[in-house]
């Protein structure tokens, strides 16, 4: 997957060079001049009150890939993402069904948005997975997996209201030192799995203002579904 990205970059750079010297020519990848590409702009808007979203992770893949399922154990990559906001393991999954991936460069604050673009050879089935941690929680994340974008024509877009999932890998104790976001500045990923060890919808946070005196969270960190809006637009 990384090699694919590098190759794409090179052919893009070559194309630019040729254009700048006045030699107009069709620019495709080196090994398949006729390959048609599909490119998708993925925009996430954070709708929460006070839950920054960790840098977005986006995957483009075929129909055989699911990054999580309700009742299924979180993968190691998902656990690292959901507990600490680090998406590097999640997007470096080298499964054959992955076409390409992208990562945001910074967290997406409440009210903010970020856009990633993923591009791959056009295929009959193309699906998107998107994931990001709610950083002022123990292991809450939002996203979608297996969103089918195969039928999008160039210029068309679709949107989804994103729910909140619980990775089930870290107990929702809300204790000081366990939450990586600005509410605490505590620990992110910890390999110990001390919760139910399956993915489900998140029950929400309790907070110190709602009678849980040990919680490091306050009322502003509460949330409801949906936590974010996802817009996918095919641009090529």
């Amino acid at each position, binding site marked *: 997957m990384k090699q694919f990205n590098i190759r794409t970059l090179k052919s893009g750079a070559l194309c630019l060079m040729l254009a700048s010297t006045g030699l107009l020519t069709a620019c495709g990848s080196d090994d398949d001049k006729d390959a048609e590409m599909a490119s998708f702009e993925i925009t996430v808007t954070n709708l929460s009150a006070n839950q920054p979203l960790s840098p977005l992770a986006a995957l483009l893949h075929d129909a055989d890939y699911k990054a999580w399922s309700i009742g299924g154990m979180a993968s190691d990559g998902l656990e690292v993402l959901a507990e600490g906001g680090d998406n590097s393991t999640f997007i470096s999954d080298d499964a054959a069904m992955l076409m390409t991936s992208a990562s945001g460069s910074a967290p997406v604050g409440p009210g903010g948005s970020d856009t990633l673009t993923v591009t791959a050879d056009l295929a009959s089935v193309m699906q998107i997975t998107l994931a990001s941690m709610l950083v002022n929680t123990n292991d809450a994340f939002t996203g979608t997996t297996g969103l089918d974008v195969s039928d999008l024509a160039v210029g068309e877009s679709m949107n989804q209201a994103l729910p909140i999932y619980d990775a089930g890998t870290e107990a929702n104790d809300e204790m000081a030192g366990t939450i990586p976001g600005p509410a605490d500045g505590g620990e992110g990923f910890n390999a110990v799995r001390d919760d139910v060890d399956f993915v489900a919808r998140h029950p*929400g946070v309790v907070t110190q203002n709602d009678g849980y005196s040990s919680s490091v969270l306050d009322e502003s960190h509460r949330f409801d*579904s949906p936590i974010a809006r996802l817009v996918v637009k095919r641009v090529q």
Partner: protein
Amino acid sequence: MKITALIPALPLAFMSSMAFSQNIDVQVTNLTHGLHFTPLFISTHTSASNLFEVGQTASAALKPMAEGGSIADLIAASPAGSVNSENPVGGLLAPAITSPVVSLDTGANDKLSIVAMVLPTNDGFVGLDSWTIPSEAGSYTIYLNAYDAGTEVNDEVIDTVNGGGDDGIPAAPGGDAGMNATGVTTTESNTMVHIHRGNLGDTDLTGGVSDVDSRIHRWLNPVAKVVVTVK
């Protein structure tokens, strides 16, 4: 399936079979992190009946389901001609678990309803009311909310007296609730079926106002996903 019950309804079924009669598969997923569902009651029926309706008083048959998980009265009250699945899971549907596929030949029925109690609550239930079964083949996904039957005070006290038949929460199947709570409230202001406000809970497992754990037994809607495949 109420095969015998279908016979008196045959003329009606025959008349409408040109317009309807579907074979459907139904699968229910408990989406929650820490709540159990009691035995599911899945019913296909006509627009002449409901299992429940928001803004209306819970029926006498719905009440024991919502307060104690018993679907016996709902089965007994099901109109002739309804095609039902009773307790397809064979017990509780645990958090994040998906039921087996329930296959129904809907006959003349074009409405689908589903109920099950949510534990631990006083009278909370997951519900689908009279969803119109599409005539077009395909897979349809429906997300369900948690409702409050409005028939019992949400005191959040676990009370297994009379097998849970008394007021109170009959059980917390996860074994993760507390005891000796003094009770969250003594009143139920909305006595109609309404959207459940959620558990309050607390973090005191040996006392406090609530026996349920606020870190485990709260939820956000939706609490269930239903996939209906029309064949």
